[in-house]
């Protein structure tokens, strides 16, 4: 892109024009269009970590969940009650109770644990204080700034979660990082399930449907814009060195952890924004909806598009959003034998075969390499 800003402006004008007809489109296509947009944001942001930086995160849905819940809480106006010191004292009293079997192991550690719990509660209360302040101020704003604020807030909290996850875990490599991010995704899910203020395992309803075509594709444009600029900046060089040879990069004096954390935090931010869009589009979010399989969906988008290939990932996001719809039509086609129709209905079977097949034959992804279209797109993107 010779002039990224011009492209961005043109694109925004285009979607602003398109969004005018939003009410006239068939709701089914409207749904698909929004889902495509959200998937592009998720895929392009995960590509920053899994593609450009060469790490392997399996917890993107976790950050999406954080963003979705934070944005929903901000727009509904859910505030939390602070943790109180007595709850720390109750735990201490329990641990220090001589009737407990674990008394002798725990007693020497009791003061340490006590201090730890106090410190933890203090940090949590500080976060809750900021949350409550932000939410109560957002409630005073008119509708659209409030929605934008909620999205940014969701992204911000997701980025914070990304930072908290990234700093300890990005010292790990490859397989370990994959499992740790998967673990964090699951922990986030368990925590949400046990937080009654946001509905716990019953899920959370969002009364107003704010997400429209313009908002979604504005987020898409901004995500692509930020990622492309970032990748072609000094930071991008940093990401690529981490991916290509971490040891050599370290030897050249590059702070690899710093670049990994930056990639991770930015990706988490956009995942959070995507979550916020999703929450205000579906109007109902549930912790089970952000599980491991959702993360796999996003990973499949990145791998199909080609790791470290933004145009490819965008294409893959479009393709993989339409594919299940096509498959559903195929499954309803009664000429096919029943067994084929049943297999086709379960898209995860096809996704898994796609993953294995791609890794065996084209590990660089469908849309990478020498094809004419990719060359054209790459010429556009990298100039």
């Amino acid at each position, binding site marked *: 892109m010779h002039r990224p800003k011009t492209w961005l402006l043109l694109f925004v004008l285009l979607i602003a024009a398109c969004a005018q007809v939003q009410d006239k489109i068939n709701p089914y296509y409207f749904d698909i269009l929004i889902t495509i947009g959200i998937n592009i944001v998720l895929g392009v942001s995960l590509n920053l970590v899994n593609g450009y930086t*060469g790490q*392997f995160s*399996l917890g993107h849905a976790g950050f999406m969940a954080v963003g979705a819940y934070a944005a929903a809480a901000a727009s509904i106006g859910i505030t939390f009650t602070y943790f109180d010191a007595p709850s720390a004292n109750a735990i201490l009293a329990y641990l220090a109770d001589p009737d407990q*079997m*674990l008394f002798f192991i725990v007693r020497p550690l009791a003061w340490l644990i006590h201090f730890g719990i106090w410190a933890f509660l203090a940090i949590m209360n500080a976060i809750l204080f900021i949350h409550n302040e932000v939410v109560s101020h957002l409630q005073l704003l008119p509708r659209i700034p409030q929605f934008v604020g909620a999205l940014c807030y969701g992204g911000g909290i997701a980025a914070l979660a990304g930072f908290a996850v990234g700093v*300890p*875990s990005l010292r*790990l490599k*490859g*397989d*370990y990082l*994959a*499992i*740790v991010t*998967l*673990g*964090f995704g*699951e*922990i986030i899910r*368990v*925590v949400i*399930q*046990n937080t009654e203020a946001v509905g716990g395992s019953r899920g959370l309803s969002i009364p107003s449907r704010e997400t429209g075509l313009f908002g979604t594709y504005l987020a898409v444009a901004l995500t692509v814009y930020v990622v492309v600029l970032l990748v072609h900046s000094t930071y991008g060089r940093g990401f690529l060195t981490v991916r290509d040879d971490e*040891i050599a990069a370290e*030897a050249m004096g590059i702070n690899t952890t710093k670049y990994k954390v930056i990639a991770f935090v930015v990706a988490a931010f956009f995942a959070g924004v995507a979550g916020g869009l999703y929450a205000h589009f579906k109007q109902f979010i549930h912790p089970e909806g952000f599980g*491991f399989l959702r993360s*796999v969906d996003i*990973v499949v988008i990145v*791998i199909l598009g080609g790791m470290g290939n933004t145009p490819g990932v965008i294409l893959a996001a479009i393709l993989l959003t339409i594919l299940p719809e096509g498959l559903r039509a195929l499954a309803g086609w009664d000429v096919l034998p029943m067994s084929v129709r*049943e*297999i086709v209905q*379960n898209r*995860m*079977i096809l*996704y*898994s*075969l*796609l*993953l*294995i097949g791609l*890794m*065996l034959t084209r*590990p660089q992804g469908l849309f990478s390499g020498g094809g004419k279209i990719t060359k054209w797109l790459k010429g556009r993107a990298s100039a």
Partner: protein
Amino acid sequence: MTEFLQQLINGLSLGSIYALIALGYTMVYGVLKFINFAHGDVYMVGAFAGYYLAPWVWKVIPQGKDATAFSWSTSAGAFAVLLLSMALCAALGILIEKLVYKPLRSRPRLTVLITAIGVSIFLENFGQYLFGADPKSFPEILPDRAIEGLGDLTVMVNQAVVLVVTLILLVVLRFIVMKTKMGTAMRALSFNPTAASLMGVNNDVIISFTFGLGSALAAAAGILNAINYPSIDPLMGILPGIKAFVAAVLGGIGNLGGAVLGGIILGVLETLVVGYVSPMYRDAIAFAVLILILLFKPNGLLGRAEKEKV
């Protein structure tokens, strides 16, 4: 005190399931240096193999009418189901290795990892298609009742069976790894693949053997778990798989003793947290352990530190 002992026994029987699965992770990691994500699903296939094999076995070995009594025929039947299911899963493990992992052996580790995730998702979803997504009730291959004469403690016969069978399998495994030629070759391969092949070890055969051995242990874990918790479904392998991986890392991945130790610790810890803190955190505890161990002792309890060479 009784309650604590009770939790400890429950934890031990859960931990031995984790230990059996963790051994598969650790052995494959030892020879191929990658995490076989699909291992937890082999455990699921093991349980389902038992589910479908039991009626066939009962045709060959007729069972007595009295369902609560132990007899030679029930023990032989259960034993046959266990062995057949182990053999079937060993074949499955070898098949997966030959078809999918072998062509990728010289590729980057990330490629292999993604493929392994693909295999895992395939097994889960093809399992849902093949077996049906609804939970099935595992046949009662051993009559279950409480062991008498333990006072307030309730120990089910099947819990004791789990512990005994696990112990036997561990002894057999140790014998195979330490005393047989195959085991020696396995250890040589995990130490240095190039040198091992120069010394006449056929690496392909050993890698297949390792996959077979690990998968057989996972199948045993599947059956042993199913006789205690008879509800089985195609997605049952995901969480135990991840937890067993945590156990392998906790003990030091690549270390057989470590995998068993990690499995037992994790099982006991999980039962204690469920018993004393809150059952809500049953699934989060394993991840918390994983994160702590990776932060403070990444090589695990028994693993040796490895210097990274450029």
